[in-house]
């Protein structure tokens, strides 16, 4: 006995209305601007045929201002689950073509359900943000609905990876949901994110600014540090999500997707011998080292244009997924400053919470000196690095390529902060401070009495460097596990990683530490 045609037809009719979203005209207008619809974004995200929708037939709860009889298909957000590379993933996508993608009670309930599902199932969640903001016709109910989303973002944090795509407007309080997630990808065009826009800023403060200056992908990626990746368009954003997920576990109880081969190649890589210049004052691009260390030269740099004096990236070494943290000598001499500390510390904590081993590459002359740095709180920001590394229990391997001075040396995952293995190259200079500075303090009187102060200073500095900055001194005191030729680095890390896959390190139970924020 077949299902009654009337019932079957009604379902199809209801489906087609909901699936049409904002309708054909709006869809075409979006396509003309190079934008996908909300639904198309999820279709591109998930492997074809795997999407299972939640709440297609949702009805909105807006009762005032003549909204009660208005049709709002899906309540302006498409939600559900699907598969990516064979792994289950949850996702939601706000539909700007339906009442501006505004967030009302039911809309938020759908997002909350998606987040609840993600945490129960232990799967990553991807959110496409494209919304005019709160549905003000629903009043404070809409505001509360935001709060419920934020609350869940926090509950999910550290349990399943959360990735946000900003693919349209994301204004005011709405921006705080993505901000609570692990990674934000923003499309270069057609997207803007801000708390107070240029008009409000002007009205309140008199300052004149533009959206490009405060809310564009470019500004967030380079100046504000709010986002991690810029996508050229929606399809590119989806590609970045896929690539990012290829390095991440589905939840905090799983290992990341290692690709361990039974046999481990431990061949030398002579190219690494040629990267560090002979003159220690000549900068080199640390990404060249990462490229040589990562399997197939394949790595994904995160936040490439913010605080470029430190480089963070995902890759694999001998099949094991790792998070790279490296000083970048070509930018600000590789110093650690406030932004670099914030960037690296959060990355270290992400890696730790999702069981991703850390490979730290060191060439750091120190923390950046400056009035602004001190007054803006380099102490509490720099402390985040120490806190993040010291509290990380994942395998931690440190390679001292060249300079490792003072507090910054400690902050770059020194042995004292719990590194499992510290390798130094023969070019390493490990010391409490630079030779010139140290000599000025240690030999103050000798220098004052010297006939040629400059020559004497240089002579003493060379002597100091030889005696006190040598990696053999540190190795002699066991601050360094071994000194290796650069060419041996890849195999040394690969072997160490494989030996640490079973690492267990327990800490005293507590609610959480009190990281200096």
């Amino acid at each position, binding site marked *: 006995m077949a299902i009654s045609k009337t019932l079957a037809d009604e379902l199809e009719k209801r489906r087609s209305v909901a699936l049409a979203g904002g309708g054909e005209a709006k869809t075409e207008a979006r396509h003309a601007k190079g934008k996908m619809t909300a639904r198309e974004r999820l279709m591109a995200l998930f492997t074809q045929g795997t999407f299972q929708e939640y709440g297609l037939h949702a009805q909105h709860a807006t009762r005032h201002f003549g909204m009660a009889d208005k049709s709002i298909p899906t309540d302006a957000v498409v939600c559900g689950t699907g598969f990516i590379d064979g792994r289950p993933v949850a996702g939601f996508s706000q539909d*700007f073509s339906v*009442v*501006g993608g*505004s967030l009302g009670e039911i809309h938020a309930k759908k997002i909350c359900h998606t987040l609840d599902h993600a945490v129960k199932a232990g799967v990553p969640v991807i959110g496409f943000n494209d919304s*005019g*903001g*709160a*549905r*003000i016709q629903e009043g404070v109910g*809409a*505001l509360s609905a*935001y709060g419920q989303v934020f609350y869940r973002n926090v509950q999910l944090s550290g349990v399943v990876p959360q990735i946000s795509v900003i693919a349209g*407007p994301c*204004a*005011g*309080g*709405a921006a705080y949901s993505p901000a609570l997630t692990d990674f934000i990808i923003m499309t270069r065009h*057609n997207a*803007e994110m801000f708390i*107070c*826009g*240029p008009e*409000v800023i002007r*009205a*309140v*403060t*008199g*300052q*004149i600014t*533009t*959206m*490009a*200056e405060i809310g*564009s992908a*470019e*500004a967030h990626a*380079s*100046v504000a540090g709010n986002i991690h990746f810029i996508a050229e368009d929606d399809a590119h954003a989806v590609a970045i999500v896929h690539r990012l997920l290829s390095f991440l576990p589905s939840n905090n109880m799983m290992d990341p997707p290692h690709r361990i081969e039974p046999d481990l190649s431990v061949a030398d890589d002579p190219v690494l011998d040629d990267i560090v210049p002979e003159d*220690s*004052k*000549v*900068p080199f691009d640390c990404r060249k080292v990462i490229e040589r260390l990562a399997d197939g030269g394949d790595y994904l740099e995160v936040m490439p244009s913010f605080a470029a004096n430190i480089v963070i990236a995902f890759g694999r070494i001998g099949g094991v997924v790792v998070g790279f943290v490296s000083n970048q*000598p*070509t*930018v*600000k*001499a*590789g*110093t650690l400053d406030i932004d670099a500390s914030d960037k690296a510390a959060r990355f270290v904590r992400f890696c730790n919470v999702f069981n991703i081993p850390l490979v730290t590459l060191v060439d750091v*002359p*120190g923390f*950046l*000196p*400056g009035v*602004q740095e001190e007054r803006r709180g380099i102490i509490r920001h720099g402390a985040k690095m120490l806190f993040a590394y010291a509290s990380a229990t994942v395998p931690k391997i440190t390679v001292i390529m060249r*300079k490792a*001075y003072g507090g910054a040396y400690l902050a770059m995952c020194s042995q004292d902060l719990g590194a499992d293995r510290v390798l130094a190259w023969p070019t390493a200079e490990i010391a409490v401070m*630079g030779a010139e500075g140290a000599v000025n303090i240690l030999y103050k009187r000798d220098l004052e009495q010297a006939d040629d102060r400059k020559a004497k200073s240089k002579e003493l500095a060379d002597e100091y460097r030889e005696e006190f900055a040598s990696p053999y001194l540190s190795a002699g005191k066991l601050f360094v596990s071994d000194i290796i030729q650069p060419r041996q680095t890849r195999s040394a890390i690969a072997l160490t990683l494989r030996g640490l896959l079973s690492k267990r390190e327990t800490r005293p139970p507590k609610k959480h530490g009190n990281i200096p924020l």
Partner: protein
Amino acid sequence: MMKRLRITVEGTAYDVTVEEMDQPGTPAPAPITAAAPPPAPAPTPAVAPALIANASTAPVGPGAVACPLAGTVVSVDVAVGQVVTQGQTLLVLEAMKMNTPIGAPQAGTVATVSVTPGATVTEGQVLVTLS
């Protein structure tokens, strides 16, 4: 009323922003109570391309190459009037145990060079301007 001025002291150019507090005819900034930011994000479908002006995001004037960190100028590798390509080294700065080449952010012609070898420079100071 905000004004941006360039002041040159002993050959070193500084870009400064000046606010005129008591200019006649300019109303004082609106009282806070009259223009409190909205407690909730308003649905603003109108905020789209029209507001995205193509204003420069650079902190100083266009073409100005600012010093990334405090240090000493080791060498100046270009002269006024010289045509440079993007990335070409303009000067070398010694700071934090490193000689950092400062490259041209874009192609152009060197309009001014504000420093000489041996000069001590601070972060944000304009070193060279390109036109």
